[in-house]
């Protein structure tokens, strides 16, 4: 078209896509870090997870 239109759409899609990827990556990492919490010191198993 004229370059500007493409740039605008690219900026929006790229920005939103980048932020979404960041969010997905972050939540994956956090979920993983919550899984292996039962370590040798864990004495009460009552904590709901």
């Amino acid at each position, binding site marked *: 078209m004229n370059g500007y239109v493409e740039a605008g*759409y690219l900026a*929006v899609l790229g*920005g939103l896509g980048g*932020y979404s990827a960041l*969010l997905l990556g972050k*939540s994956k990492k*956090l979920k993983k870090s*919550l899984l292996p919490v039962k370590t040798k*010191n864990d004495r009460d198993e009552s904590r709901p997870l």
Partner: protein
Amino acid sequence: MESKRYKRVRRAAGIASLLSVAVTVILGLWVTPPDVVQGQLVRLIYVHPPVAWVAYLAYGVTSIASILYLWKRTRNLRWDLLAVSSAEVGVIFTGLTLITGSIWGRPAWGVWWTWDARLTTTALLFVLYLGYLALRRVPADSHQRAVRSAIAGLIAFIDVPIVHQSVVWWRTLHQGATVLNPSLSPKIHGEMATTLLIGFISFTFVYIWMLMQRYQIADLEQRVLDVELEQLIKERRNEPGVGSSQIESTEDVDNADQPSKV
């Protein structure tokens, strides 16, 4: 952990936003005709105003959540997590509003930036909420941080009309509004209007999905903090010669930070 229903709604919002954004892009780039006055440039109208609308929507949600936290009868840390989630998504959308506005302005007005009232207000809004997010990174206990950021969020929102009014006067008292030249604004009809409407809906879906995703992250972060604290307390307990009274007091802190169940 997040409930099944929450997960289902979030997934639905995700799918809806992917599909509707795709439709918006296809309609916006290829199906709709170029405008008589603006030519191809008019295609930017299908993304720029919807993105700006979402930014304002996000800040509105932040303010409502802040009020609900400050009001003692509805006080719950969930509102705080919602406020920060919405503000962060809002900052992303404000940034994109500025970028797309600038890209549109360059061919339409010949400059990347003009001191137009709406542009200037949006730029100040962007900085205001960046400040809000920076304030949230200040370490504090969760209640204190929630109160402080709720107040900051509310002040920022109250400031918006004052900023806007001052900037409007600044631009209009001394020179005519050159930007809002009516002959430049496209006449909207038919499939263009439909596409614009779909644009608004699709970016609202994106907002809902992002908000839910971001909220879940905030909630998980709280949980990780709790688990880590628990871990530390247990290690302390196993150390020889640590009195139980000391442990009681740490547990109080832990309880105060209980995460909200989603």
